[in-house]
């Protein structure tokens, strides 16, 4: 890989890893705060442990979760990570398989891209809607549309990826599923 794509991949992966790591830490924080609330002297001694400062933890985890799902699918999830019914796909001749791959990749690319504008206009009203608790974390500017922004990003990146995969398949064919690295996680 040349340097720029490598840097980009490194960055997108680091973001995804941070989302998971933050979610983990936020949950731990939530438990610690709830448990420490039973000892009121703690909050008196350390004002930052005042439980009412942490009303945002639950919604923040949900925020991390949706960003994880769509950022992850845009940049981190590989083709072989997806759940597929592969019975027919694996049993046909390579040429037919390539045809299948190109067809569904293009259908997905066109479909998702076509839904970008209508989806964004459904999100339009959310520019008015405050989040339930995230203002106390991010500041008063944050609105639900900012939270949902990642889905629009997903609708742009994923079609580009599928279009690229379709081009690649037309040009070079598709992998033989019998010798792919399906069990890379079962090392």
């Amino acid at each position, binding site marked *: 890989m040349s340097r720029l794509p490598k840097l980009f991949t490194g960055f997108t992966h680091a973001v995804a890893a941070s989302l*998971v790591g933050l979610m983990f830490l936020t949950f731990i924080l939530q438990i610690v705060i709830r448990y420490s609330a039973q000892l009121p002297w703690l909050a008196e001694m350390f004002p930052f442990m005042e439980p009412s400062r942490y009303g945002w933890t639950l919604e923040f985890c949900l925020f991390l979760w949706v960003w*994880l799902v769509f950022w992850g699918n845009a940049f981190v999830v590989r083709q072989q990570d997806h759940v597929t019914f592969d019975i027919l796909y694996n049993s046909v001749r390579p040429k037919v398989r390539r045809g299948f791959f190109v*067809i569904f990749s293009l259908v997905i690319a066109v*479909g998702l891209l076509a839904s970008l504008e209508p*989806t964004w*206009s459904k999100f339009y009203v959310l520019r008015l809607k405050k989040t339930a608790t995230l203002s106390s974390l991010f500041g008063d500017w944050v609105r639900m549309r900012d939270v949902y922004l990642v889905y629009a990003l997903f609708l742009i990146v994923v079609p580009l990826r599928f279009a690229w995969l379709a081009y690649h398949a037309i040009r070079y064919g598709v992998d033989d599923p019998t010798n792919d690295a399906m069990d890379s996680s079962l090392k």
Partner: protein
Amino acid sequence: MTFEFMLCLGTIIVLAGIGAPIAYVILIAALLYLLAAGQGIGIAGKVLMDGLYQSFILLAVPLFIVAANIMNAGTISDRLLSFCVALVGRFRGGLGHVNVVASLIFSGMSGSAVADAAGIGKIIIEMMTKSGQYTRGYAAAITAASATIGPIIPPSIPMVLYALVSNTSIGYLFLGGILPGLFMGAVLMAVNLWMSKRRGFALEEPVPLIELPRRTLNAFPALLMPAILLYGIYGGVTTPTEAAAVAAFYALMLAALFYRALSMKAMYQILVESARSSAAIGLVIGGALILNYIVASENIPSLLAEHLVGLDIDPLMFLLGVNVLLLLLGCILDATTIILVIIPLFIPTCRELGIDMVHFGVVAIVNCMIGLITPPYGILLFVITAVTRIPLSEIIREVWPFLGVLVLALLCMVLWPGLVLALPRLFGYAG
């Protein structure tokens, strides 16, 4: 059934059939449905985002995945495996039994079968395949089958949902799930024993009993994990969802400080890997949310309800009919939708026919959980595929015997209400 609904189902069958990722298939089919029905196609994304942004209990999924990945990288799974092999490796189907028993123990941990399968499921599948005795499809299939027990044994989110729509006591429902849950565990172990004999899964070299204390000591901190989690939940420190974070935290402490088997770089890889699996699962769950919207939008529930008004049939026939219908619906709908949207339709008729509501609830929930592993659309199968990358076709091929005995177990629960009601009655249930 409308034209656009047929179009939607047809698109799913064709696109999924030629090997497209299932989550994207559903999304595309939903867009076509909305277009044909004259609704805005932007709704699909809105429904997906709204649903995921509400899925509190699913937050356990990424956390359990982190926990499982830490346990694998931090040699915790290896130590557990070597302990289990020493303990049960000499018996036929030993690790398969361990799998079922682990599900029974951990079933108390989360309210959700999906979280259970993503969590211990991943760990134990790796243990079973590493041991070399079992095919990976078999390991995945028994894991999926035993994860269905999770929400039958309390605590259980599906039972809370059922109680809300049926006005039944959650306490008695929880009690009612215990015997059926154990019974399901027993039939799965029976199948595992039978299959292991029939297929001649190799036995492990018996580990001398004198080895056992050392291996126990070696695995002891890891064996403490269930105890800590169960104390966390029943001692009131954490909610079942938060327990997932505790599991990850404990595994991290063990791996980093106690076993000293985890570098910063490895930890980073674990986070990336967890992000990858969680994102793939999240998108599949999002697909289920969109299908739910389409079914609601078709107003299928109220069409069904019209046929149920004034139904006059034998209660047992009614129960059997409902169960067949739920099993079929389980092939396309997810459990939450069935519990919240379909089951309420049967409740008035149940009351009229004098069917006990706790009995009906437990039976219906067992049914919904079986639906999670019925091909072609079984969320548990998808989740396990996403976490382990074992091809769906291999899991589906191996899941049939387990599915079969679970359906038989369900039939027993329908025919003998005592199986469900004995414990609640012991604690004062008047039904």
